[in-house]
């Protein structure tokens, strides 16, 4: 049945933007407040799912031409590289390093390799969710 989805589509666009912003916020805040790469990633993929719901697979694929399997791989690579990075510093694997910096706008912040690790998680989660949803969606 043909339906008119303009209301939904308009709202979805706005909402997706809000969700993605929120996900990035939650991802960076992970070390200090609840959240982190995992929830952040899930939320980001939630935004994409919302778009999928409002539009359809092909349209969204045109909007975001990404191979999500490679996103998974890239995320895994980043995380495992962070884990193995310690090899080059002669420290036990997975040893994180961090430093506090005074950055403009953000104020007193720490740059932490754990964030890099978490970035891997973030990407993996987006990749996974989207791979699953996309493949199942396509197969129907």
């Amino acid at each position, binding site marked *: 049945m043909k339906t008119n989805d303009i209301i939904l589509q308009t709202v979805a666009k706005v909402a997706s933007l809000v969700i993605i912003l929120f996900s990035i916020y939650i991802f960076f805040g992970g070390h200090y407040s609840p959240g982190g790469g995992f929830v952040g990633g899930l939320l980001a993929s939630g935004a994409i799912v919302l778009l999928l719901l409002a539009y359809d697979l092909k349209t969204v694929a045109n909007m975001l031409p990404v191979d999500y*399997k490679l996103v998974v791989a890239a995320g895994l*690579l980043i995380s*495992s590289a962070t*884990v193995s990075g310690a090899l080059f510093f002669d420290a*036990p*694997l*997975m040893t994180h390093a961090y430093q506090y910096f005074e950055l403009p706008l953000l104020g007193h912040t720490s740059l932490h390799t754990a964030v890099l690790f978490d970035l891997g998680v973030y990407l993996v989660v987006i990749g996974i969710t989207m791979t699953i949803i996309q493949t199942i969606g396509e197969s129907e």
Partner: protein
Amino acid sequence: MNNLVFLPVLLPLLTGIILIFFSKYIKIQRFLSLVSSSLGIILSCLLIGKVHDQGILALQVGSWEAPFGISIVADMLSSLLVLTTNIIGFAVLIYSFYSIGTGREKFYYYSFVQFLLVGVNGAFLTGDIFNLFVFFEVMLMSSYVLLVLGGTKAQLRESLKYILVNVISSALFVISVAYLYSVVGTLNMADISRRIAESGQPGIITVIAVSFLIVFGLKGAIFPLFYWLPGSYYAPPIPVIALFGALLTKVGVYAILRTFTLLFYHDQQYTHELLGILAIFTIIVGTIGAVGYWDIKKIIIYNIVIAVGMITFGISLMNEQGLSGAIYYTIHDMIIKAALFLLVGIMAMITGTSDLRKMGGLIQAYPYAAWTFFIAAISLAGIPPFSGFAGKLLLLEGAVEGEAYVGFAVILISSLLMLYSVMKIFINGFWGKPRAYKDADLVPVSRLAVPAALLVIVSIALGLGTEAIYPYISQAMEPLIDPAIYINAVLKE
């Protein structure tokens, strides 16, 4: 600080990830996995050398001191098993080149194999009970995918059952860890061991021990819990069966070995007795299955069950001979099972069936495969000087020492029936009237037989060179008898 300890896990992980990027380029995938596998063997040899020189190596991941962070611990047992795993991975990989088909290759087959190795190696090396769960899951997830990859009817049907059973066992694993955490308040196995020893293993710990036994027993396929195995291992293509048969159940058995020697060894009257009884039943039931079938895959699959019983029996003895027998037998069985599956796979590919009654006379056209199988078969049955013997002998000696005469008799009888079951394959498949098989010419038998022959050579070397590896085995056995060695190495007191 021994990052080497973790490299056997990290290497396949990185390889697996990188292979995802090359999913369309099969040649590159093959090359990379081969390189990584060879490197893996070298690394694990290095690891064994280092453990041999310096004793147990422990890596405190993330520089967090022992009971708080995750410890990766390489004692000799783990290192030996890691080496064996890598050798098997290498052989199966070569076999896969010629048999798995481009379809699966393009859909990340090699990545999944690498991830499976990650899980298996990780499970052998970790010193943290929850991390063990995570590695189990890595291994299981890869195994689910490998089992179902290709999506044929039989694969789907059996995967459902396989996944279901393992989901249950994972849930039980989680709750067992939860119970244990509630009682002892820590997750590091060395620390757990120390705390249990301090408390003298009260009744509740014994209960938890039994629930761990159920969890690992489900994975390792011991007596009342193995029923899922024959069906599930029947469905996937041969290289996958070889990996499963050689590695997966052994990880379960390893976990039993580790937990019942390191953690729950204070109430042997009950726990190890129970283990022994289950082990004997496992052998019996496996033997019953193995002698009845006329399907080559089924026969070997039931032989896995027998081997699991043998090893757990060794564990239940808890004396030096029994434990070293169990270790030796595990290594032997991993190698020889992989070889047998690969060979049986060649037979099935040539004849297009796995029903023995529909084959015959293969020795005429494929003498090398036939003799490789013959040696593998007698090695399985434990005829000296091949690798099966030393393990069996040690188990027998351990049984006498532990006055477990029933087990003694069962091992002997089951050895005979094991030989009967595999010789049945030889007599009816390789001997007998040669028949014409369509498609037989398409099978690159000589290439496929190479990895199998490689494994058989390893097995022979293992048998003839028992003396050379015996120091390693006994070094592997020491911490099992005296957990203090392990604990001190991890907690550095």
